[in-house]
């Protein structure tokens, strides 16, 4: 076949590709968009959406009245308050102190820095039950830390504070690991520019560094918060699981399951899912706003 007899190159693409590319008004230079998007959707569907929608389906089987009765019962509401409250508080504390840890690890060379750096990941690796038992024995009124706090009237184990401590423990790595690389990439130039313009150290940190770290801080916060919300293993040991007082939502769900109340369990889970989805969406929007200065 002579070269002139070849069909035009464009015609060789499957029609679906052409419509897609014309819809996007310019042809992507990266090949494989269709394939990778298809894979992404299938994967997310299989791993995330199918199990989640099962919860919704199960819940759909109960009437609205029954649903409301379950999720609005005082014991469940108390658990929601505890779970969301302690998770938000833990996420916030982690955001602040995770930044400090990341700052120290990035900015100051000190002996054993690598060791401390590795230590940060420990809450990731430790089985959460081990963490829970360790924390409980430390903070109970005759534990190493608890015995010093008890005379001050501070009780940690088997209280709201205990839940908060456990959730802070497991959430720390998220903030450190998201902020660290961004902090590393910040050019020293901008701090020097700030100081030649007469800003003091505090002004430089508050007005220059924090705003530039904000997107990663929010990401870290969202991750730590989400992790805390679903945390079970470490909390059940330290919280004491007293209904209305120190009972977290995941525990309540397990309790319902153990009583073969599947619909009740999924009803609680659905409320939890929807509210955490809304919260994460809000954090995402906030994050988008905090990086509005990026090239458009």
């Amino acid at each position, binding site marked *: 076949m002579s070269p002139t007899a070849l069909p035009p190159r464009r015609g060789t693409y499957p029609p679906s590709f052409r419509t897609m590319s014309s819809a996007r008004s310019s042809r992507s230079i990266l090949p494989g968009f269709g394939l990778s998007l298809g894979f992404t959707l299938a994967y997310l569907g299989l791993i995330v959406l199918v199990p989640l929608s099962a919860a919704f389906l199960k819940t759909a089987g109960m009437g609205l009245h029954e649903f409301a009765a379950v999720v609005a019962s005082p014991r469940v509401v108390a658990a929601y308050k505890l779970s969301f409250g302690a998770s938000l508080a833990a996420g916030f504390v982690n955001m602040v102190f995770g930044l400090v840890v990341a700052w120290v690890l990035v900015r100051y060379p000190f002996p054993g820095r690598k060791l401390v750096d590795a230590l940060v990941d420990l809450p990731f690796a430790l089985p959460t039950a081990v963490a829970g038992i360790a924390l409980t024995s430390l903070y109970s009124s005759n534990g190493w830390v608890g015995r010093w706090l008890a005379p001050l009237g501070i009780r940690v184990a088997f209280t709201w504070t205990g839940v908060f401590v456990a959730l802070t423990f497991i959430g720390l790595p998220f903030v450190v690991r998201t902020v660290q690389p961004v902090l590393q990439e910040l*050019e020293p*130039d*901008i701090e*020097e*520019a*700030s*100081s*030649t*313009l*007469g*800003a*003091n150290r505090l*002004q430089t940190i508050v*007005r*220059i560094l924090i*705003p*530039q770290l904000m997107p990663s801080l929010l990401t870290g916060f969202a991750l730590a918060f989400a992790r805390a919300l679903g945390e079970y293993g470490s909390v059940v040991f330290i919280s004491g699981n007293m209904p209305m007082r120190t009972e977290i939502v995941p525990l309540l769900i397990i309790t319902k399951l153990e009583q073969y109340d599947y619909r009740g369990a999924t009803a609680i889970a659905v409320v939890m899912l929807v509210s955490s989805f809304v919260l994460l969406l809000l954090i995402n929007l906030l994050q988008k706003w905090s990086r*509005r*200065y*990026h*090239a*458009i």
Partner: protein
Amino acid sequence: MSIEAHSLYKKFGAYTALDGVDLNVPQGKLVAVLGPSGSGKTTLLRIIAGLEFADPGSGRVLFHGDDVTDLPAGKRRVGFVFQHYALFRHMSVFENVAFGLRVRRRRDRPSREAIAERAHRLLELVQLDGLAGRFPSQLSGGERQRVALARALAVEPKVLLLDEPFGALDARVRKDLRRWLRRFHDEIQLTTIFVTHDQEEALEIADEVVIMNKAHVEQVGTPQQVYDRPASPFVYQFLGNVNVLRAPALAGARRRGGPAEDPNTEGQIYVRPHDIEVSPHDAGGSGLSAIVRHIHAAGPHARLLLEQVQTREQVEVEISRSELADLDLGVNDLVRLRLRQSHSFDEDYAI
């Protein structure tokens, strides 16, 4: 405000960045500190700015006679412009410029309106007032650098320090911007030091050039002085092209009437490519015989690469294109070279 620095020393570990450097910049001048990378020029600028401190026990930095050696950067009232702009990317152009005024203590801080007015006036000065609401990521390199300049000027600095201000820009913008900087300097008359490794840039816009090499100042002078009378072989080679020829090769190459040379002198002769005269070999007379190896005629001047017959040294010559046409040269032609002007740093080999 004049700037003086006396015998500054600075070491980073084993590396010496400044080894006893003096600098004197008179009020209102635009001075270029020129040198290859690693010559210590940026360190010098940063010490003047207060972003770096000279080694303890070494020299002083004076602004208008006042000792500022121990003052931190924020208290020196310097405007510093960084090579990579260092703009605050989360702030708009306007907020960037206003930053220096907004962080002042309440009693020194101008009113909100006064800050806005000053910021807009500065943006007008750098011809960017229309872009006040943009973020740095939406600007071109040249625009960013002008924002950086406006930001530095907002705090009413007494001196302006520019670290490779055009280093990150492409050739065309660079050229425009440096001419603009010269005019700008003439307007605002602020004592300015700028660091560069680009000799063309330094020679074009500076009132005075300070040439640095290996932690030392090699020479200080007006652009013409340093170009015409380089104080050292380094300066000769750093400022424009130069041929380094072994002296014995030059016996008889000078124009007649020059002092007689000792043919055994082992010194080296420095000649700029445009200071060599080319004539046909068969015309006779004195001079160096050389063979044309390459003719590069694209550009304002023709560049010839020749090989000396006697020593086989390479010689680069620059002649006008009309001269080239008159000579009617081809590769491998034999020609005669005469040095119009040359220089030797040998004590006993004065010209």
